[in-house]
C-alpha cells in the first residue's frame, strides 16, 4: 500500500510522556495511505499514544510531525482544534442531540465552512459509509454499527492528515463487528492519510492494518508487517495474540533448545545463542502412552485447561514445557482428556522454528 511520496509527508512521531503509573516511549512512522495497527494489553499505553497524537495530552519529550507540519516538539504544541486530525473511539460518541448529518457536518462547520457546503460534504461522507438514507436520524435511532459508521464519516469529514481509531469496533456485537470491519476496510482504502488503529483484537489488526506495532508497558516490543509478526513473535503477549507457543530460549548447533524454564525442545532448524522458539498449537499431538519414532519431542505433561473453539479444542498443558495444543473434538473424547490428567504431548522437530532473540 505504500506509495512513492516525498519524505516527511506521512507520520513521524516519538511520543514520550508519563501518565499515572505508566511511562510511555513509543515511536511511530508511516507513509500516507498506510494503516498502522497498535496492539497491546490494556493499560499498556495505547490510548495515551492516541491522545498525545490527537493533542489532548501534551508530550513530555519527543515530537509529532504529520504531513510536514510540526504538531508537538515537546515545547510548542498545537491544540487539537489546530491539527488536521480525526478521532474515533470505541463508543462512537456521536453528539446525541444532533442528527447524523449535523454530526458529520460539525467538523467542517467548526473549521469555518459555510452551513450549506458543510452539509453537502457531510452528505458525501455519509454516502461513502452507506448511510445516506439515515442522514436525518438521531444517534439513538441508529444501530451500534450505524453509529460507528457515522462516527467514521464525522472523523473523515475534515480531511484529516492523521486518522486515529481507538478500538473502533470494540463496543459492537460479533455480527455487527464483522460487517462494520469490512465497511471500515472499504472506507480506509479510499483514504490517503495515515491511519493509526488501536485495537486488542488481532483480527482487526490483521485485516485492516499493513503495519503492526505492539506496545507493552509503554514500550514498543515488536513492530513489523502482519506476515513478519505472525511468523516471528518477539514477546509473550505477541505470541498469545498470533496464537503460537513461544519460548525465550537458548539454542545450540545440535538443534537443542533450552527454554528459560528448564525445558528441552529439539528442532531441525537450529539457531545458536539467545533464540525465540515457536510451536504451532496445531502441530502438537496428544497420546495416552509414550509415542515412538524420532526425531520428535515428547513430554509427559498435565492438562491444565480444555476450551472448545468451533470443531476443535485448545488444551492447555503444564509441565517441563508449557504448551497449548489444538486437537480435534474426536481426540478429546477418544483420549478422554480431563483437567488434572497426565498426557503425552508430541511435536515433530521440523515444526519447531527458532530465530535470534
Amino acid at each position, binding site marked *: 500500500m505504500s506509495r512513492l511520496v516525498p519524505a516527511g509527508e506521512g507520520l513521524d512521531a516519538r511520543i514520550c510522556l508519563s501518565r499515572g503509573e505508566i511511562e510511555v516511549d513509543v515511536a511511530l512512522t508511516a507513509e500516507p495511505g498506510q494503516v498502522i495497527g497498535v496492539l497491546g494489553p490494556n493499560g499498556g499505553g495505547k490510548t495515551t499514544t492516541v491522545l498525545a497524537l490527537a493533542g489532548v495530552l501534551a508530550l513530555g519529550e519527543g515530537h509529532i510531525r504529520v504531513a510536514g507540519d510540526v504538531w508537538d516538539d515537546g515545547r510548542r504544541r498545537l491544540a487539537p482544534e489546530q491539527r488536521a486530525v480525526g478521532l474515533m473511539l470505541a463508543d462512537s*460518541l456521536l*453528539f446525541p442531540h444532533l442528527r447524523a448529518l449535523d454530526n458529520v457536518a460539525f467538523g467542517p462547520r467548526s473549521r469555518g465552512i459555510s452551513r450549506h457546503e458543510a452539509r453537502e460534504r457531510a452528505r458525501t461522507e455519509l454516502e461513502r459509509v452507506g448511510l445516506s438514507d439515515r442522514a436525518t436520524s438521531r444517534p439513538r435511532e441508529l444501530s451500534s454499527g450505524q453509529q460507528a459508521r457515522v462516527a467514521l464519516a464525522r*472523523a473523515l469529514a475534515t480531511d484529516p492528515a492523521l486518522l486515529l481509531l481507538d478500538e473502533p469496533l470494540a463496543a459492537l456485537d460479533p455480527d455487527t463487528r464483522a460487517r462494520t470491519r469490512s465497511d471500515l476496510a472499504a472506507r480506509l482504502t479510499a483514504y490517503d492519510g495515515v491511519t493509526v488503529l488501536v485495537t486488542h483484537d488481532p483480527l482487526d489488526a490483521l485485516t485492516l492494518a499493513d503495519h503492526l506495532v505492539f506496545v507493552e508497558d509503554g514500550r514498543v516490543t515488536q513492530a513489523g508487517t502482519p506476515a513478519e509478526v505472525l511468523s516471528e513473535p518477539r514477546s509473550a503477549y505477541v505470541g498469545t495474540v498470533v496464537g503460537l507457543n513461544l519460548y525465550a530460549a537458548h539454542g545450540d548447533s545440535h538443534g537443542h533448545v533450552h527454554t528459560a524454564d528448564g525445558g528441552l525442545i529439539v528442532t531441525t532448524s537450529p539457531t545458536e545463542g539467545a533464540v525465540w522458539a515457536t510451536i504451532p498449537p496445531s502441530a502438537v499431538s496428544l497420546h495416552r502412552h509414550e509415542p515412538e519414532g524420532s526425531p520428535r519431542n515428547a513430554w509427559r505433561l498435565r492438562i491444565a485447561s480444555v476450551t472448545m473453539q468451533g470443531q476443535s479444542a485448545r488444551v492447555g498443558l503444564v509441565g517441563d514445557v508449557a504448551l497449548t495444543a489444538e486437537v480435534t473434538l474426536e481426540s478429546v473424547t477418544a483420549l478422554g482428556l480431563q483437567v488434572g490428567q497426565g498426557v503425552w504431548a508430541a511435536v515433530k522437530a521440523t515444526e519447531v522454528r527458532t530465530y535470534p532473540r
Partner: protein
Amino acid sequence: MRYAGRWRSRVALGVPAALALLLLVVPLVALLLRADWARIPSDLATPTVLPALRLSLTTTSVTAVLCLLLGTPLAWFLARSDHRATSWVRALLTVPLVLPPVVGGVALLMTWGRNGLIGQHLAPFGIQIPFTTVAVMLAETFVAMPYYVLAVEGAMRGLDPRLESVARTLGASDLRYLRTVGIPLVLPGIAGGLALAWARALGEFGATITFAGNFPGRTQTLPLLVYVELERDPQVAISISIMLLVVSVLVLGVLRGRWLR
C-alpha cells in the same frame, strides 16, 4: 413481649416523625385556611402590591440572566478543572449558601457602599449602588448564583469528557463546543439551576433589606412588602404570601424529575 416491643418502637419512631411532619405542614395549612380567596385578586391589585410585584419580577429576571451569562462559564471552568484551586473555589461558592442573608447584606455594603471596597471608586463619578434597584439585583444575585453554578456544574460533570476531545479534534474551540454541544446537552440542568436560583432570588429578604433598604417602588420587593403589610393590613400580607406559595409550588414542578423523585 414481641408484640409490646413492636408497639414501643413504633411509638418511639412514629411520634417524632409525625411531629416533624406537622411542624412543616401545619404552617402551610394555616396560611391557606386564613386566606380570603375572594379578596386575593383585589389585594394583589392594590397600589402597594403592583410596584412590588413588578420590582420582584424585573430584579429576579435580571438575576436569572446574570446567572446564565456569568454563572454558566464559571460552572464550566469548575466542571472541567481538576486543579486543587478548583475545590477551593467550589468551597468558597458554598459560603453564600449557608451565610445568614443579613451578613451577606453587610458584606455587600462593605463592597459597594460609599466607603466600600469598590463603592469608594464609584462615588467620585456620582454612582451610588446601595439603596437602589441595582442593589436589589446584586443582593439577589449574591444569594442565588451559587445555587445555579453548583447545579449546572453537576450537570456538566455528568458529560463524557471524551465528547469534548472529539469536538476539539473536529476543530471546535472551547466556545463553539460549549455553544453547540456542552450547553445543549446540559439544558435540563441549566433549567433546573435557573428555577432554583430564581426561586431563591424571589424569596430574598435579609440581604436586600440590609443592603438596599425598603423603599416602595425602588427596593421594596414582595417579601419586604409582606413584612410591612403584616403590620398594616395582614390580609394583604396573606394574599401575597399565597401567591408566593403558589409560585414556589410551580417551581417545584419544574424541578420535579431533576432532583426530586
